[in-house]
């Protein structure tokens, strides 16, 4: 009984959640009482400190995320260090505790993010239901604005960014020939911050969700919103902290834990992609943290960072916000580029075309990515001369992106193409991302941008880039590594069905948005003029079809995970390191440190190898557990 209450786990998490919340509340009341501020129980500071800061910390502590460090600080024995008891998964229960195994964490990330993808998707369907007809049908403006605001926040902060972190968590250490990430306990902590962020954003519906859009512009979001706005501010902080910790972990892992022989120029492009993404995350994410803190201070403590009355500067919010949120577009894209390089090379049976230029163009995107933020602000009222340099850098970023697309096409050229599900999603990505990229070039051109900004053309563009781009690569990655993660094969027929439903549904939903946008329909309204009615009804019907395609994916994932055919170690005949071990890999990945001897894409050369494992030490299949 004592162990049940005091040992790490969900029971301790529950009571510590309450206890920390109460302590937080006490601190607020004490401070207000000593300062003579009444009422003592003012809603906003109480909710902020108690529910959005202290209670989640209690939850983490209860679950055991800090146990090792606490014991170490207190001078108690830290057995977890020696016996690896927090490592690996023997049963499904091990996925519900603080686990330090990067493979378990990868799966935790992916399952969590797919759940938020489903919630975010359902919010989108509600948005489309409202938009099917011009009048206000089901939701008033407050609810409607919350629906699209929470939809976007979940998809960005709780699905795309962390889904890539999940895939990379599973794959990167394996590809490097490492036993785990550099900081396994930090890795576990960064995962558990994520459900906190997600629950915060979703639960804001209970108290009056934020309705200022995911961009949360001041002064609308900093002074004119219900309390849900601070749920958004704080949710972003938790998700952002998770991102930063993971990125630091990837950087250290990639720099210090490569197997012997794994030089930077022998790393698979997926590793390069996560290396560059992590640089972006570490440099950029603190800016959104700053913007959300200041905005929240304006809301809760009546500071004036962004309020002109009092000397604040509303455009300051936009500059700081986009200084993160434009690089964030690449944070949501570069890992997908990495997945594409692996999938296209493997299923074309050819080396990546122009490997070094591919890696260098990732670096070019990182550098240029920090010089384009104000292209979101061409109409914002910032100094008008700033539009020209921002336009030039924005258009220039098309060059490294173009290099990548042409190189993938050249990789397929004269190859032996196999159209398994991951490859189908890769091709879907290529075609859709080209369309999204070209509409991006249009939007980079200032005169075009000021004629269609804040219209549905923008909505179409962002979905071609983030859905046709990022989400397609996430699906490709999930199918590609599904056998490695679960030890079972997914159903290829259902996978292909999922692809075609998604591809067709996606285009029917989002392509017509370009047209209603240029015709002058603004975004973020639940009520629009009747001349857009026909196309909107069409878009809404198509979106419901697109929604149904996700059911095929879920069915396939769940049944294949349980009953799928047992996967061999290397079902795709790929060359990178993760395919040299069993599916799923042994607890510490490699029984013997692999020796890297060549390029990861040496297709077409008889007997070529990327790395050597001593044959006697190749793990046996009986280590497979699901």
């Amino acid at each position: 009984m004592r162990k049940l209450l005091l040992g790490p786990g969900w029971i301790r998490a529950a009571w510590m959640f309450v206890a920390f919340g109460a302590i937080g509340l006490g601190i607020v009341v004490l401070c207000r009482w000593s300062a003579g501020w009444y009422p003592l129980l003012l809603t906003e500071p109480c909710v902020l400190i108690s529910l959005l800061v202290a209670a989640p910390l209690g939850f983490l502590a209860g679950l055991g995320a800090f146990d090792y460090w606490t014991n170490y600080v207190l001078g108690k024995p830290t057995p977890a260090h020696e016996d690896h008891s927090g490592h690996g998964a023997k049963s499904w229960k091990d996925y519900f505790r603080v686990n330090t195994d990067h493979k378990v964490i990868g799966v935790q990330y992916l399952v969590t993010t797919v759940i938020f993808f489903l919630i975010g998707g359902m919010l989108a369907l509600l948005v489309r239901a409202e938009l099917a007809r011009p009048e206000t049908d089901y939701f008033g403006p407050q609810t409607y604005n919350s629906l699209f605001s929470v939809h976007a926040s979940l998809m960005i902060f709780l699905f795309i960014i962390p889904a890539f972190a999940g895939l990379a968590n599973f794959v990167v250490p394996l590809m490097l020939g490492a036993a785990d990430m550099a900081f396994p306990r930090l890795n576990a902590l960064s995962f558990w911050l994520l459900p906190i962020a997600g629950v915060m954003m979703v639960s804001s519906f209970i108290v009056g969700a934020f309705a200022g859009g995911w961009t949360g512009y001041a002064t609308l979001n900093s002074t004119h919103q219900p309390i849900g706005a601070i749920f958004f501010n704080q949710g972003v902080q938790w998700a952002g902290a998770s991102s930063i910790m993971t990125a630091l972990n990837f950087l250290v892992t990639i720099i210090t834990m490569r197997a012997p022989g794994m030089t930077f120029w022998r790393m698979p492009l997926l590793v390069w992609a996560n290396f560059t993404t992590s640089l972006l995350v570490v440099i950029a994410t603190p800016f959104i943290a700053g913007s959300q803190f200041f905005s929240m201070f304006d809301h809760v403590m009546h500071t004036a960072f962004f309020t002109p009355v009092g000397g604040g500067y509303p455009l300051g919010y936009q500059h700081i916000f986009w200084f993160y949120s434009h690089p964030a577009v690449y944070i949501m894209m570069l890992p997908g580029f990495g997945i594409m390089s692996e999938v296209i090379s493997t299923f074309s049976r050819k080396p990546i075309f122009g490997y070094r230029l591919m890696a260098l163009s990732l670096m070019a995107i990182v550098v240029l990515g920090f010089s384009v933020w104000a292209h979101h602000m061409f109409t914002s009222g910032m100094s008008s001369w700033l539009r020209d340099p921002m336009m030039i850098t924005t258009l220039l970023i098309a060059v490294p992106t173009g290099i990548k697309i042409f190189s993938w096409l050249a990789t397929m050229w004269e190859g032996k193409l196999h159209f398994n599900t991951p490859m189908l999603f890769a091709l879907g990505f290529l075609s859709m991302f080209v369309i999204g990229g070209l509409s991006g070039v249009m939007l980079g051109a200032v005169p075009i941008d000021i004629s269609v900004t804040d219209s549905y053309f923008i909505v179409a563009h962002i979905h071609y880039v983030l859905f046709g781009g990022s989400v397609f690569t996430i699906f490709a990655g999930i199918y590609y590594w599904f056998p490695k993660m679960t030890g079972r094969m997914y159903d290829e027929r259902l996978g292909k069905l999922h692809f075609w439903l998604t591809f067709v549904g996606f285009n029917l939903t989002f392509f017509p948005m370009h047209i209603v946008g240029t015709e002058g329909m603004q975004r973020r309204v639940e009520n629009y003029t009747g001349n857009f009615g026909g196309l909107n009804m069409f878009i809404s019907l198509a979106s419901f079809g697109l929604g149904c395609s996700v059911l095929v994916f879920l069915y396939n994932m769940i049944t294949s995970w349980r009953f799928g055919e047992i996967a061999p170690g290397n079902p795709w005949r790929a060359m990178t390191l993760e395919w040299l071990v069993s599916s799923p890999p042994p607890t510490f990945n490699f029984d013997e440190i692999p020796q890297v001897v060549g390029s990861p894409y040496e297709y077409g050369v008889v007997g070529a190898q990327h790395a050597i494992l001593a044959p006697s030490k190749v793990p046996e299949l009986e280590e497979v557990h699901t």
Partner: protein
Amino acid sequence: MRRGSIVALLGIGLVAGGVATAVALIPTWLPPARSEEAGRIDFVTWFVIAICIALFAIVAAAMIYSIVKFKAAPDDLEDGPSIHGHTGLEIGWTAIPFVLVTAIAIVCAIVLSKNDAQGANPLHIDVQAQQFAWTFSYPDAGNATSPVLLLPVNRSVELYMRSLDVVHSFYVPEFRETQDIVPGLVTQLHITPNHVGTYRVICHELCGLGHGLMRTEVKVIPQKAFDAWVAQQKSGSSG
């Protein structure tokens, strides 16, 4: 490369380009342009669309050709040739897009500076935006105010815009220009309407619960009618 594959590539490229051109031309994408600035902006739009169609056709040709031509049988376990790159090609697809985007940037910068340049004798109008209404006032007409924006045709107009609360944005689809209105700042927008008519003014930046209904009209009227309105307002305010 064999001659046959070059012909096939060209063929697919032309078909893909043709389809894309049809998509660009057949639906009515843009409302009619009703200001001099809008005309220039539409020129940029079609200039960039033409480049985009060409790039789309190239990518589509390479992709569709590869999918059809290089499909392997399921039991074909062979690899493709070990080709790692081609310096000439790589320089080419770095340099050509560089030239294209530079051309786009130059055209845009020229159009932008032309659009911002005021014509002779510009009309000054103050715009006040607040949740969720527009007020237009005319310093040259005895500070007359109007909930509808009245503009004389073919005259350079400069809007000076202020917000009382949150960020709003002024947008008329037929004028093609958006300009945010930021509390604490005065932002400017230059328009030279060149067709008489009535168009919608909509708020283009989420500004709260009434954002979707923050609409009014702009009436572009002949100079004489505008002069008469100004005279009427002046006499009204003085008498």
